[in-house]
């Protein structure tokens, strides 16, 4: 007979639930702030100096990373997390969410501000531009993404991080807040695909 050795799960003292991982010491990762500052300075210099290469670089790199991270998180990381154990899922989120708090607004700013300047330089803002409708479509796509990201996801992100700091975090509340990411992944994914279609169309016509 094969002996199956099972690791006994230690009984939790009465009144204690599973241990929740603690988020890092600060909600906002302070070591990332110098990078954000450098990006902001680069953007100001690019915009103030009408530095076409820098505007293009910021817009393309920022946009590619924004779209890439959104799609990767929504369609790869999300489903993988869904198959992880609850403690593993929460531990990953506790470390992942602070980074996203800083990363995504930086990428969005890095994309939109230079993008507007590029469009102005290239004459895309004129209503007479033959593909002006596509540009307006991109504004609407960004508007939808901004509403979801700022109105739905970022509040949930912050609320989860603060909840994890409590001595006894409410697991049900955390699960409820994180479900927002699942529900909105489809919408933001579709918006990002629409962005790819619009931007590649404009670049090639």
């Amino acid at each position, binding site marked *: 007979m094969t002996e199956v050795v099972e690791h006994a799960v230690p009984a939790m003292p009465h009144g204690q639930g599973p241990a929740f991982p603690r988020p890092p010491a600060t*909600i*906002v990762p302070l070591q990332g702030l110098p990078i954000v500052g450098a990006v*902001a300075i680069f*953007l*100001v210099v690019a*915009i*103030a100096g009408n530095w076409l290469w820098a505007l293009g670089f910021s817009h393309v790199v920022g946009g590619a990373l924004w779209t890439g991270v959104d799609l990767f998180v929504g369609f790869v990381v999300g489903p993988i997390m869904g198959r992880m154990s609850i403690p593993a899922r929460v531990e990953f989120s506790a470390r992942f969410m602070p980074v996203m708090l800083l990363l995504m*607004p930086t990428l*969005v*700013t890095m994309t*939109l*501000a230079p993008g*507007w*300047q590029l469009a*102005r330089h290239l004459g895309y*803002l*004129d*209503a007479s531009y033959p593909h*002006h409708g596509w*540009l*307006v479509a991109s*504004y*609407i796509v960004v*508007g939808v993404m*901004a*509403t979801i990201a*700022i*109105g739905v996801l*970022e*509040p*949930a992100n*912050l*609320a989860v991080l*603060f*909840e994890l700091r409590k001595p006894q975090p*409410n697991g049900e*509340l955390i699960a409820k807040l994180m479900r927002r990411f699942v529900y909105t992944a489809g919408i933001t994914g579709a918006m990002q695909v629409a962005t790819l279609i619009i931007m590649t169309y404009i670049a090639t016509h």
Partner: protein
Amino acid sequence: MVLVIVGTIYLAANIANDPSLAIPVGLDVVAVVLLLAAIVVVSRLPDFAWTTFFIVARWALLGYLVIAGMIGFVFIIDNTPAAQLATLVAGLAVFVLDVTLILAFSVARYQPPD
């Protein structure tokens, strides 16, 4: 927030053609009214986690002021006509305050009251 975004999209889509500001200004006005109403409602909440609220509000305000400042800077550099610029800046101000309120309230509502 949605009203400001819609007004800004309308303005951005027509900015090269000296558009009528009636729609974006109207939307900004309604947005301001709704924001003030939200501030009044939140300020009258009994037993609320105000310490947490203001901690989050401070940092959110700083972050979104930087973002709004960058966007406003772009419009100033572009010599946007004064009336359009004023409408955009007003919209940005409402946006920043609204986002700050949303984030601070969303966190504080789940924290133990002071």
